């Protein structure tokens, strides 16, 4: 903890960068992933190719993905965010699809029978019922991004990874810990708070699948 004691400002700065990187990534991941997930539940033929594509991208090692992106987006935050968003898409899209398709057919039938339009069904029934599942995806994506974002320091994106990489260069385990421990703490905190948020939207075990 010597490094932390002697350089609190540096750790705080990197922590802030890290949070920002993760927040931007997850926000973009939601903004792209949720609509994409909705789209592929409505345009069914898109579902397989889209899930396959996000799945394949997910398996590309992060350093390789950075390397592929650098010619286009350069060194720095931009490249890091693009790559991290790509990783977050798989779980967000997949959970959005699972959440919407998990709504009980009976519930949807009642909604149609009441005279809801397709948009009303989505807004008033499918999305609210899928929300806990979507949030579970966001939670997973957030925790994973907090970890992966440390690697993004390798391409100049800053964050806690910077401290860890510096520590590795100098074989300074204290420095490594000063980067790794706050990252782990951040992951735990995000996991816990998003878990709580998810439970607030949970409407009982049966309602996750739409109620029977």
């Amino acid at each position, binding site marked *: 903890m010597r490094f932390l004691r002697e350089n609190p400002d540096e750790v705080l700065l990197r922590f802030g960068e890290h949070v920002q990187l993760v927040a931007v990534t997850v926000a973009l991941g939601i903004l792209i992933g949720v609509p994409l997930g909705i789209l592929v539940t409505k345009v069914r033929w898109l579902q397989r190719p889209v899930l396959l594509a996000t799945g394949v991208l997910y398996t590309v090692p992060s350093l390789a993905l950075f390397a592929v992106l650098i010619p286009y987006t350069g060194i720095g935050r931009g490249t890091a965010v693009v790559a991290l968003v790509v990783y977050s898409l798989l779980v967000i899209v997949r959970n959005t699809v699972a959440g919407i398709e998990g709504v009980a057919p*009976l*519930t949807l*039938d*009642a*909604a*149609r*029978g*009441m*005279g*809801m*339009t397709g948009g*009303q069904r989505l807004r*008033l*029934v499918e999305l*609210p*019922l899928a929300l806990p599942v979507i949030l579970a995806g966001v939670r997973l994506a957030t925790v994973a991004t907090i970890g992966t974002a440390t690697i993004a320091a390798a391409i100049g994106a800053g964050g806690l990874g910077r401290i860890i990489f510096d520590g590795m260069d100098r074989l300074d385990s204290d420095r490594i810990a000063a980067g790794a421990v706050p990252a782990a703490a951040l992951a735990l905190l995000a996991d816990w708070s998003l878990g709580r948020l998810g439970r607030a939207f949970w*409407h*009982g075990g*049966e*309602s996750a699948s*739409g*109620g*029977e």
Partner: protein
Amino acid sequence: MITLDHVSKTFESKGRTVRAVDDVSLTIGAGQLHVLIGPSGSGKTTTMRMINRLETPTAGRITVDGRDVLAMDVVELRRSIGYVIQQGGLLPHLTVAENVAMVPRLLGWQRHRRRERAEELLGLVGLPAGQFADRYPRELSGGQQQRVGVARALAADPPIVLMDEPFGAVDPITRKQLQRELRRVQAAVNKTIVFVTHDIGEAFLLGDQIALMADGRLVQNGTPADLLRRPATPFVTAFTGEDRGLRALEYTTLAEVADAAGSVPATDGDTLPGELSILEAGRELARRGETGVDGFWVSDRGGRKTGYLSYRRFAAMLGEALGPAGATAGEADGDALPA
């Protein structure tokens, strides 16, 4: 009024063609509770779902108050038809009041008016709003959820309500209670109700008219008494059950069997309301005791004497229904009755 005119529906599933509904023609009168009954898979649900266009007929025409449903705006059509399904189909993330007020919400009612309406309807179906309005469906028993389903279907005051085995998933005691309540509610709101069930007891208890289906076809359509006393086919006889003789007494009213009042000389004697069943009349007469006259008068709802029934004929009806020939009681004297 709803009419089905030579309506058929075929499904293609797994390369097989299923004729779910086969050339059904049916008229459902305004203010009637019309039961669709038949074995599982006989096409009841599909028939009903074509009325609010959850299914589209393969052939034939369906009209509501003279208008072809296929020519109407589907969303508007559905909002004008209440819809109740098994297990309620309540939206689990909304409170009871929000569920009940959903169609009014879709119709753009103001919030306070929706709330008022929801509370009113919860009262009607026997769920005090103060206690139930803000609960979630999962906090309710199956029977209570069904009541909410009925309240929701009635919320926007639609002239027509479709109910698909609404009481199928609750225990027998609750079911009885819900059936009685539906009768009470129907007496209060007087909707055109299409009611799907496979429970013959429920059909007789609730139906003004009963349409019996088998293999997608309409086997017989008529009043409960028609089905019991003049079964169109042996299938009807079999389906309406062993104790149909007794049931016939339960579901045949005095008004249906009495001789026209003009055909007999005016005498004294008891007057019984025409809407009593033969069984109820028997009980009532036994309670009143001997009158010295050879029969009794049957009155309409206004109290006018519209018919006369001799004790001899009355006893014969009871005897035939209860005797060993009971199973065919209706046929034996069916033609002689002016019903």
